[in-house]
């Protein structure tokens, strides 16, 4: 691999040397050439891996998405996979579930972690202990922590239902419950909730709780770093001017932290749109088919994975992966446009 790549690098090195201005003395040119070659040699290993497993696959994936592709290529379809996806009601439903998941996790995780980070920043005793504990769920693997949460949500003997029974409420089916959360709560209070308003299924809400629990610590660490970057003199000056605690938070902390908040919002939205392993393990392992009760936890990534790995509709899965990518890309661009208005850069 090295030898082949080395040849490629020397070729581009030769091209480069042609571009170098003539008329300079030879030793300088020689050293220049050597540095060029060395540069290419040093980036070569990383370039090979990134090209083989990151760049080329994008083109390859697009090629696959234009075909009917089972285990092997079957037939050229053009954009038929894409039009099929846009007409696929289950794909649309999976996008709705994804949006529920994003809306149910991102704002909660960020608000919660902002509050925790702000409290931790008040010259707390034992800051590092608290931080260690909050960060622990993020460190542990998805599978192990999902196993624990599956047991917490267990409908028969799980601690959550034991707790509900203890306070006199009826036990729930949690991850096996396809009914929407609003319907479940409304039903318990005696309301009838129309189907369009039932919200994400209780199963999906359980998965969201799991995700929030897992990622709060990560956001807390980022927020703590952001808070540490705010110059202390600003608070001192504001205090002298008689600002109260709320004003300090509202007028100094929030604006100066807005780049951090913005970064976390944008990245979390992308990550939540692509969330897979957490949802996959929480649904596939709760003793039912992939996608949870009545597909109410089938997010777009789960649906794509099922088409790819479960049904071997590889071309179709590829086309949906591209559609999902475009959706997240457009969303990110929109967020950047809106973000400019709210983010305050010093």
């Amino acid at each position, binding site marked *: 691999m090295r030898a082949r790549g080395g040849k490629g690098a020397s070729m581009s090195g030769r091209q*480069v040397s042609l571009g170098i201005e003539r008329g300079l003395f030879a030793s300088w040119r020689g050293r220049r050439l050597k*540095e060029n070659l060395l540069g290419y040699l040093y980036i070569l290993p990383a370039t090979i891996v990134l090209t083989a497993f*990151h760049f080329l696959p994008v083109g390859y994936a697009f090629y696959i998405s234009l075909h009917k592709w089972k285990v092997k290529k079957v037939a050229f379809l053009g954009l038929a996979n894409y039009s099929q996806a846009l007409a696929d009601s289950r794909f649309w439903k999976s996008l709705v579930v994804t949006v529920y998941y994003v809306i149910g996790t991102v704002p909660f995780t960020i608000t919660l972690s902002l509050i925790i980070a702000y409290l931790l920043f008040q010259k707390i005793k034992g800051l590092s202990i608290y931080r260690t504990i909050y960060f622990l769920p993020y460190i542990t693997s998805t599978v192990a*922590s999902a196993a*624990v949460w599956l*047991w917490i949500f267990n409908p028969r003997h799980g601690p959550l239902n034991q707790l509900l029974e203890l306070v006199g409420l009826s036990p729930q089916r949690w991850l096996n419950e396809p009914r929407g959360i609003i319907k479940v709560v409304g039903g318990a209070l005696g309301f009838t909730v129309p189907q369009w308003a039932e919200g994400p299924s209780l199963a999906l809400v359980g998965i969201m709780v799991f995700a929030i629990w897992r990622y709060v610590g990560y956001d807390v660490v980022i927020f703590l770093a952001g808070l540490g970057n705010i110059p202390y003199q600003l608070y001192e000056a504001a205090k002298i001017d008689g600002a109260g605690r709320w004003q300090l938070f509202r007028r100094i902390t929030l604006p100066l932290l807005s780049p951090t908040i913005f970064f976390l919002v944008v990245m979390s939205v992308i990550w939540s749109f692509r969330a897979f392993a957490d949802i996959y*393990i929480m649904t596939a392992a709760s003793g039912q088919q992939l996608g949870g009760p009545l597909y109410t936890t089938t997010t777009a990534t789960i649906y794509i994975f099922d088409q790819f790995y479960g049904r071997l509709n590889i071309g179709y899965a590829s086309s949906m992966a591209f559609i999902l990518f475009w959706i997240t890309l457009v969303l990110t661009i929109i967020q950047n446009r809106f973000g400019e208005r709210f983010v305050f850069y010093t």
Partner: protein
Amino acid sequence: MTARERLMARLPRRISRGLLYVVLTAGAVTSLAPFIWMTLTSVKSYREMATRVLWPASLRLSTYSIAPGQRPIAHLFYNYVQAWNAAPFARYFANSFFIAGCTAVGVLITSTLAAYAFARLNFYGKNVIFVVFLATMMIPFEITMIPNFITISNLKWVNTYQAMIIPWIASVFGIFLLRQFFATIPQDLYDAAVLDGCGHFRFLTQVVLPLSRPALISVGLFNFLGSWNAFTWPLIVTREEKMYPIQVGLRYFVTESGTDTQELMAAAAITILPLVILYFFAQKQFIEGISTTGLKG
């Protein structure tokens, strides 16, 4: 102002301070609760599970004081031994250590070289190539997963270690982080090294690397952690139990019907333990690494 008045004046502050700790501790307990529940469950007996005993006998001192012949430690770790023997966990661990270790070392080698080139060498098209590298971070895994799986199949790499290592031994984040670090090393050092007859490679290995230990540890740790916790890719490319890394192995253990919950919790605890130990030892690197880069595993 009397002492009493002074106390009263400080009271609101005291209360809000106390409230602060109450809220933070409640949050911390919520973070820890699943782990506590996991540990508690993992030392329960089958009968205690069925009868919903909250505090298991294995954690009661009286259990050990009245029955000296019962080998209490075996009693405490009964589920752990059962779980360990129910699936080839030793093999899973060995696989994970090998895969994560190779990945971390591979990333360190490729990233160090590339980062050095980007930070300290001048070559044609350097900035363009760097931007293209950064652009790979935008490519989502759902898109590359499918063609990469086909590539791996064509290479006949399915169910091999290299399938789980090679695609991940280059990290743009690693290159980025190390480049930032290498760029801060003063040029004078290099000039002095050149006077001593030192080339770029010797300068890199003997001056730059020792100076960059914190950054190298961060990059190594995060890639080790990422590889150790990786799930989707190993799930796709492994076929046989003997090749499973711990995450995939545990997943099949979880979905297998008939596994008792207390054994499952013991297995989860076994899986979590090495990482928790690593985390406690290298906490500073984890926290600093994340704070400076905003990197997600």
